[in-house]
């Protein structure tokens, strides 16, 4: 199960019809200490690259865009009490939410891990 990235530094892992979404380690590092994650409403339906959630750190308040289309079926409640999980484990325990009904064809407009690493180099 591989991970895909957006230019806005979100990641998505697709497992069958279910997609897990989060922000990249690079993004978490750039944001600094994360103080709040505004989780999406359960049942919310998003299109690819629509605003999905929000994140606040000591440095900034940013939107999190959805890497794929879908319907929110699970949110990471742990982030309500422990938003720092995103800093500690951005690409694993710090996941934001899960979507169902993702269209696999949309992955083609995203980057795989190697392409994202290359993209980050270009940003330096």
């Amino acid at each position, binding site marked *: 199960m591989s991970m895909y990235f957006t230019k806005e530094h979100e990641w998505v892992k697709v497992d069958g019809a279910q997609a897990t979404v989060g922000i990249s380690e690079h993004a978490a590092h750039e944001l600094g200490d994360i103080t*709040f994650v505004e989780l999406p*409403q359960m049942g919310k339906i998003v299109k690819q690259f629509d605003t999905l959630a929000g994140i606040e750190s000591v440095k900034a308040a940013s*939107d999190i865009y959805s890497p794929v289309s879908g319907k929110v079926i699970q949110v990471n409640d742990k982030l309500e009490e422990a938003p720092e999980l995103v800093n500690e484990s951005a690409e694993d325990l710090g996941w934001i939410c899960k979507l169902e009904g993702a269209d696999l064809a949309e992955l083609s407009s995203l980057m795989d891990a190697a392409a994202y690493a290359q993209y980050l180099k270009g940003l330096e």
Partner: protein
Amino acid sequence: MGYCPNTPEEIREMLVVIGAGSVEDLFSPIPEALRAKSFELPAGMSEFELMGIMREKATTGGSEIVPFIGGGIYDHIIPAAVDHLAGRAEFYTAYTPYQPECSQGTLQALYEYQSAICRLTGLEASNASLYDGGTAVAEAALMALRITGRNAIVLDASVNPLHREVVCGYLASLSAGVCQVPPAGCESDLELLMGSITSETAAVIVQNPNFFGSVADFTALAAKAHEQGALLIVTCYPVALGLVKSPGEMGADIAVGEGQSLGNTLSFGGPYFGFIATRKRFIRNLPGRIVGETVDKEGRCGYVLTLQAREQHIKRHKATSNICSNQSLCALRGLIFAAALGKQGFEDLATLNFDKAQYAKGLFSALKGVSVLNAGATFNEFTLALPKPAAQVVTRLLDAGVAAGVPLGGYYPGLEHAIVVTVTEKRTKAEIDQLAGLLEEALWN
């Protein structure tokens, strides 16, 4: 920073740049017929003469009228401490400074204000104040739309009609709909309110006491709203909270109100302040500024603006509200008033209002042809049905130096004979008795 007007030389330079001959030319687009020939201003006078005129104006006319008018704005005693402390130069600035390094006094005052509002409303989190009661109700409605992601508001029509207009004005350009629920007589129609909640309802908005003066317990309504995933917003009269069950105790999610009755003068309509408080879990959806308590690097207690990511200067168009200031000075007066009275003082004040209003209610309802329309309990306001059009009676009594109340006809068609009378602690027995006499005379002579 200088605040000097432009010099004649600067004015000349600017006129040359824009190619106008004179300042007067700038007004040329306004048709001659619409331009004032004269402002009929008197000739200049000395400071001494001017003070004499102002003093005379301040002691005649308006201020001599004995007010039995409420309807959202109330004539209460203001302890001398309010003027004295709020008038101190440290607070009495033209703008509200927020840099924590140099504004600890202002920030702490606002923090204490927030604490007072939380204790009054029975809720957990308050902001540093809003502009007035009407916009506070509207902000609460917007907040409920954000929290629930729904798009309909159920609005009790016994909420202050002016505040309802503000709510409808705020929501008019959004996709949200407002369903106004008519009262049953002078009481909120609880059954109809409950029946109006749908799966699209973001919040139910009620007022306590309502515009007719009736007091209600909205606990069951809160439970019903929550059952359907909606919020309950209660707009309340802070002085009444000394006696009446608080919004928090009823299970309300957001409490708002007009703060004028807390230490602010009537002042011909403002400025006043609005307050808003909510449950802790909704704090990120609160509009406006919030002051928090923290410690500095040496561990000393200090105050700062907090949760600013909600606000316009960070979140831009996604901010919780376009409000980017507050009413610090008016809110400060509210805080000093609340602190001067204390918990017992609030209860005593509320009891005094209630007792005097009960006396007046008994007296007026005994007048020939007059009846009280409130079916249940009231606080310091009640609605009377008169045998004559109320507006006419009020006008006649004004000539006798008494503002008898708010005629309802303009707000509630069909209630042209009804009037809302308010009796605060400031009204003496002699004034109440005088109003009874004047009413009888106006109604039957």
